[in-house]
């Protein structure tokens, strides 16, 4: 039977694992087998000896059958002896160390303390309660900038609303993300991003606050729904709700920003076809750091829902713009928001962690921006006026402005982007993608 295989040691632990029986049963089987066939001497038997030594120590060893008598002399008392393994030949007993491990399941001792921690416990365990404390601090810092940005932001569009919804989802997930992000460095990076956002908002500044506010109310409801859905990971219901809300908001927005909306619409339609591709791209591109950064942003935004929404909307806008560039040719207005949401939802299942929020963040995120196949953006130096701590500050800022997609010079804008990203990269190397995307977004708007 098994022994016929050359070079295979049949140890009791292997046998118990293979036959899924208790180790003691496996020992018994081996022993009986050996008793039955040992006259034929076809194989070698190795015993395990366990006993007390003369100097009060204990010893566990395995010995070949022929060495048993000499081995036993070492012991003052032998407390156990059983067949360890049977094999055709065994030049060295040490070789048994290489034998396959047994399965602890079939051992003679059970440990009832070996409960597994669930994901939430693991999170706390890995990152500690400190992660929650870290959350609150950055939020406060950010708030001022966020609120400013909110006041100044452009009510660019339905897209923004969609983004806001996504951000809400992010918020829930955000706790988790934050915990993972745990590093304080991330917080700093978040702050930086927030600044960028505010600057972007300022530029956009001109626009339709009223429409945005209306949208906010709708968004909130949508957000909460969305979040809950995300938790449950029921993708379908969430999608439907989001779509409905998003479409409404989109319509309103369109009135305000017709041009932007159209672009977004175009983008969306293309996305529908390209969703799958985007998803895969997103997965590859999006790093956990990106998520975390986004999360931190959302944290900052938490205190003021409006400001948060606005930020989110900005992020989404960026994503949309990128998409637009990709999808420029197609025109479809209402379908856009649903597509975005779909993407976010699709991302959700991908995430290994239980929290859907991560996924949503991903979908919103900068990686899409990077994904830009056909985007063309030009880096320009622009004077922007920011509200900082109640003061208006004018700064020269590098901004990417989107060019018509048709433009032949794709490579140049990319280079410029890289430069910008490098400057940001001091804080975080990975941020580059996000920052560039944000900038791009703003300029376009």
């Amino acid at each position: 039977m098994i022994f016929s295989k050359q070079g295979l040691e049949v140890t009791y632990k292997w046998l118990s694992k293979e036959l899924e029986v208790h180790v003691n049963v496996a020992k018994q089987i081996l022993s009986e087998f050996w008793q039955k066939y040992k006259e034929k001497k076809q194989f070698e038997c190795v015993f395990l000896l366990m006993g007390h030594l003369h100097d009060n120590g204990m010893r566990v060893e395995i010995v070949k059958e022929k060495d048993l008598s000499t081995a036993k002399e070492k012991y003052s008392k032998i407390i156990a002896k059983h067949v360890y393994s049977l094999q055709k030949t065994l030049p060295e007993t040490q070789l048994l160390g290489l034998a396959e491990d047994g399965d602890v399941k079939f051992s003679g001792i059970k440990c009832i303390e070996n409960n597994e921690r669930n994901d939430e416990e693991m999170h706390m365990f890995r990152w500690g309660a400190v992660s929650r404390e870290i959350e609150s601090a950055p939020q406060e810092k950010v708030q001022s900038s966020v609120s400013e940005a909110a006041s100044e932001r452009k009510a660019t569009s339905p897209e923004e609303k969609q983004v806001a919804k996504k951000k809400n989802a992010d918020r829930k997930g955000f706790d988790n993300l934050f915990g993972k992000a745990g590093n304080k460095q991330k917080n700093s990076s978040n702050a930086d991003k927030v600044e960028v956002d505010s600057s972007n908002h300022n530029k956009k500044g001109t626009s339709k606050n009223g429409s945005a506010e209306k949208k906010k109310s709708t968004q909130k409801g949508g957000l909460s729904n969305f979040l809950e859905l995300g938790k449950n990971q029921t993708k379908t219901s969430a999608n439907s709700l989001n779509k409905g809300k998003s479409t409404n908001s989109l319509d309103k927005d369109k009135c305000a920003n017709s041009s932007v909306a159209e672009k977004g619409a175009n983008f969306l339609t293309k996305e529908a076809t390209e969703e799958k591709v985007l998803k895969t791209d997103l997965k590859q591109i999006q790093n956990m750091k990106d998520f975390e950064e986004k999360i931190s942003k959302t944290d900052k935004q938490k205190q003021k829902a409006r400001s948060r929404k606005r930020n989110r909307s900005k992020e989404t806008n960026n994503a949309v713009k990128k998409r637009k560039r990709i999808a420029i040719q197609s025109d479809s207005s209402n379908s856009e928001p649903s597509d975005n949401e779909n993407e976010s939802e699709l991302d959700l299942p991908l995430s290994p962690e239980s929290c859907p929020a991560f996924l949503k963040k991903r979908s919103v995120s900068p990686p899409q921006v990077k994904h830009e196949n056909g985007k063309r953006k030009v880096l320009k130096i622009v004077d922007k006026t920011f509200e900082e701590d109640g003061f208006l500050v004018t700064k020269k800022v590098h901004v990417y402005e989107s060019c018509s997609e048709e433009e032949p010079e794709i490579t140049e804008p990319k280079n410029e982007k890289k430069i910008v990203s490098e400057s940001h990269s001091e804080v975080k190397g990975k941020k580059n993608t996000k920052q560039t995307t944000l900038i791009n977004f703003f300029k376009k708007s």
Partner: protein
Amino acid sequence: MVHKTEEECDDLFVKSGKEKPETFERKQAEYRDLSKKFINTKSDYSKQFSHIYSARLTELREALIPRVKTKWENIPIVKLADLEKLENQQCIIIGTLYKHQQWKPSILRELSEEHQLSASCSKPNYCSEKDQPFLEDEMLRIKLVGEQVDIKQIITGVVCAVLGNENSDGTFLVKDWCFPGCAPKESLKEYTSQNRLVLVSGLNLSNKSESLGMSLFVEWLCGMAGNITIQKDNTFIVRLIIAGNTVKNNDTSQTSTNTSKELGEVIKFVDLFLSNLATCCSVTLMPGKHDPSNAMLPQRPFHPCLLPKSSRLESFKSTTNPWVGKIEGRVIIGSSGQSIQDIVKVTGETDISPLEWLEKSLLWRHICPTAPDTLLVCPYYEKDLFIMETCPDIYFVGNTDKFETKLWKGDENQIVRLISVPRFDTTQTAVIVNLDNLDTQYISFSNI
């Protein structure tokens, strides 16, 4: 003769074949990790290390003064600054020992060797002919002389009281010593638990050739090997403590496993190994000198992300080095070996076993006196965390060359089990401690 022993053994042999195989439940024990202070205490890298010495002296002086007063009655305790006024009268000074050693680690010498300004030489210890003993308090230091001064026994960082008088040449003639002594016991209650601990150290799993000893150890601990009696008996083993160097055991293997990829492989294997153990027995894992943790004492626990599988299990506890814990009411203090290894280097004495130094450090009331002088520690500045505040019941050091143990009895009824836990990869030996009566025995897993 041979036949006779055969029969004996057969009596002991597993008879479970026709019955339903029994499995036993491992006993549970109350477990508390008291080493949180090592993680939570703040340290500041912009601070000087002298704060540690002053904190140590302040705290241990409080412990010394009553002992000094009972040992040498009516002799004044003075500060070094006030020695002059006494005009060579007999007195007691309390301070920190300092041994001036030419060959102790020095960043300046490393630098000059790097620039080839001086010849580099690697020595097994820090000693030279020119070593000089001093005693220093917060302000001054004074050279110690006399027949009572054995330069080999002087360990930098130990706080002690010295009886003697100042010589005219500004040195201090030592007549007697007094050390803080073992810390008082928290309570002297009776222990009745049958439970046992197993200690191992230096598993060195980067040594890829998985040894037979290691698998026998796992089989024994997890209740696979042996007969029913042994399996039942082993359920009393409530916890395995792994005292350092689980991943690697020396620097030489570091060069070969230094690539991060290889180290990653090893750690994956360690994770698997530990998670296997932890499903069957509670495990406490301390980092060691060569493990992927910080080099400064106290070494932080392995991060949960480093050992994802093991960390999932509640029976697996990753902890600090040195470690202070309480199991079934027994206070346990242990280190992975750096503290004692460094003391050996400071003394240059090879005849004194680690166990003796362990006992002495109990009397010094300090786990690692040579830090921060020659042993890296975090720059705590408010408190010296390595002072033993309570008397342990079990005090062990890991990664020694051989197993040794001693039941130490103090003059205040303290009973301490001292253990030097040998490296597993060379000795294939683990240590079993009975929590009831502190009986200790070794168990070896080789077939040499």
